């Protein structure tokens, strides 16, 4: 190819399609709702299938049984996980913990990565600025940051105070623990660099997940607006509904390439030379999280508005996606926080 090329490879698209098919089959809304009610059998089955497909270990090197693929290879899969509102913290696991363990290496990686990637055990991540750890009650190993060190803490060495999120599938916990030399697995500049990288991966992965949530909200709202009649016509024939949904389509459509570019930057460094301002990977990731958060929030707001009263009911599935958007738009840096990163780089 003699041209610059902003397009996923056929392999990447094929992998995405396979993940989409698997998730559509294994993770219907009933599985998400079951997790709300404390029943994780469905969730465990989806997770096992994703592990088997290689999604969870995708970022691990081959010596740890992974696929040795990049953030760019993962980004479309996380978007697919968002479409079905996968209740498991896939971003923290596959996009953050696995590559972090791999980069720390040694016996820690050798011992844990294969077990995590196979679904045999679970890992949780606590980054600076994130007060609560998702699915904390599920994890056997906690990767936690204290000062300029990273610690790997087994479940037995800490206590968890559970929190109730508006999205019950989040299963948040406040982790109480004491850093010690025994748990320290990286320190100094290495740890600081890995922590920063983990933050970028968490923000980017969450942005991709939000794109999927937003796209699904748009899809089901379009479906509802075509079927639901009021005043004798489908509500989707009203201009107010059309324009709300067109605005969502615009927001998602233009956020998508920004997220994919950020994934490229993480994987291969900033491309598209001759940009006016020499931004780095952090700026690209911040743009991605800011735009994806805003687009998904708009999708949620307009979805509820177009659904009317039924969207407001607990029994209707809309809320499963909407509440996840509320939580993830704030997680790993909200839109304002990320815009301020871009602002400092661009406006001085």
């Amino acid at each position, binding site marked *: 190819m003699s041209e610059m090329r902003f397009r996923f490879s056929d392999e990447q698209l094929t992998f995405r399609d396979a993940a989409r098919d698997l998730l559509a089959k294994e993770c219907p809304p009933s599985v998400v709702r079951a997790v709300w009610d404390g029943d994780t059998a469905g969730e465990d089955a989806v997770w096992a299938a994703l592990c088997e497909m290689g999604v969870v270990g995708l970022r691990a090197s081959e010596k740890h049984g992974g696929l040795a693929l990049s953030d760019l290879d993962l980004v479309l899969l996380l978007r697919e996980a968002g479409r079905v509102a996968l209740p498991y913290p896939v971003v923290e696991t596959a996009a953050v913990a696995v590559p972090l363990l791999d980069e720390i290496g040694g016996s820690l990686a050798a011992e844990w990565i294969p077990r995590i990637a196979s679904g045999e055990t679970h890992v949780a991540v606590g980054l600076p600025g994130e007060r609560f750890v998702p699915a904390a009650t599920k994890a056997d190993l906690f990767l936690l940051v204290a000062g300029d060190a990273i610690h790997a803490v087994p479940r037995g060495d800490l206590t968890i105070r559970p929190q*109730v999120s508006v999205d019950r599938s989040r299963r948040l916990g406040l982790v109480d623990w004491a850093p010690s030399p025994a748990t320290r697995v990286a320190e100094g500049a290495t740890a600081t660099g890995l922590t920063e990288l983990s933050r970028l991966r968490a923000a980017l992965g969450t942005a991709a997940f939000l794109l999927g949530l937003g796209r699904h909200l748009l899809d089901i709202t379009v479906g509802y607006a075509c079927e639901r009649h*009021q005043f004798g016509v489908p509500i989707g024939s009203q201009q107010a509904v059309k324009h709300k949904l067109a605005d969502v389509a615009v927001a998602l459509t233009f956020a998508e390439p920004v997220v994919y570019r950020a994934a490229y930057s993480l994987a291969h460094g900033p491309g598209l030379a001759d940009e006016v301002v020499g931004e780095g990977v952090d700026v690209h990731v911040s743009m991605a999280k800011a735009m994806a958060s805003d687009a998904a929030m708009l999708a949620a707001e307009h979805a509820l508005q177009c659904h009317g009263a039924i969207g407001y009911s*607990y029994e209707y599935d809309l809320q499963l996606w909407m509440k996840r958007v509320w939580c993830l738009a704030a997680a790993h840096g909200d839109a304002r926080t990320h815009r301020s990163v871009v602002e400092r780089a661009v406006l001085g």
Partner: protein
Amino acid sequence: MDLDFTTQENDFRAEARSWLEANVPRTPLPSGDTREGFAAHLEWERLLFDARWAVVSWPVEYGGREATLMEWLVFEEEYYRAGAPNRVTQNGIFLLAPTIFEYGTQDQRDRLLPRMAAAEDLWCQGWSEPDVGSDLAGIKARATKVDGGWLLDGQKTWTTRGAFSTHLFGLFRSDPEAERHRGLTYFLVPLDAEGVTVTGVGRLDGDEGFAEVFFDSAFVSDESVLGGVGEGWKVAMSTTGSERGLTLRSPGRFMATATRLAELFRSRAGSADDVLRETGVKGWMDAQAYRLFTYQTVSDMVETGRPMGVESSLNKIFWSEMDVRLHETALALLGVDGELDEGSADAVDSGAWMKGWQFALAGPIYAGTNEIQRNVVAERVLGLPRK
């Protein structure tokens, strides 16, 4: 123009404030939209009634104080400032009662209003039906004339607190031949009547706040008709006017929310950047504007005697969207703490902002979606063509 309250108004405010300070429960009641919470709220309602604060603007003989509209606004400001519980009787007191005052017989007034004020009868509204929504003229539930009364059939849905109420008011089609808004009659229905079944439905925030009500040849007497057979549309429009207008959403409520938001900003000064502060101050200004608009409107009503008209649609759009933005700003300020719900160990203000946000989200939807309200403003206030 005289924007200073009179001595009488200030005295009224002082009396209300002092009673509320002494009587409002120290810890917030559980949600009135759950079964346990509702019982706690009933106790509060009866305490209010006994002290004659339940229906301040009503005649003394029905339990009120014959307060002026201005005094009512003052009372509401004090009520919400004190952090007093939401009124679980509001559907009756604020929506149905004005209609009974306007269309009810003397017998209906004497029989129904005192029990409503005392929270002995608990009213829910039956407007929406499956596949009808905001389009009231499409109502399908039927009323069939029989000897001495009517048989009701059909289904009402999205009935707020229906599962905890004793009575329902709503429209039924009494003339099967008539179309759209003709041939409807306004009925007052005891929910313990034979043939009535009430099923609770969960709401966004998890509370059992909605109900579906099924009617299967449920018999009601002729005295259950409010405002004349076939007059239901006209009568109902007066009630929905109240819902969308002044009475349900007094500025005191939003002033209180805006004030709590300002306090939240002050208590978390470190986490508020200037962008968020500007959003916060916009919300606070809007709450002020809503208060000023209301006082202006009420002054006009008092002086000219004209009732609140179609401009209540402007009102509904403004307060409902302001309420969403106020809560949204609070949640943004809370950051990663924002998603914590009621009952979470580390939730700020017991998760009240997340709860309030979900409640606020219903605002642009209920009582005629804001899309419909914008059509009403365009067509009836501005005079744009219907189609």
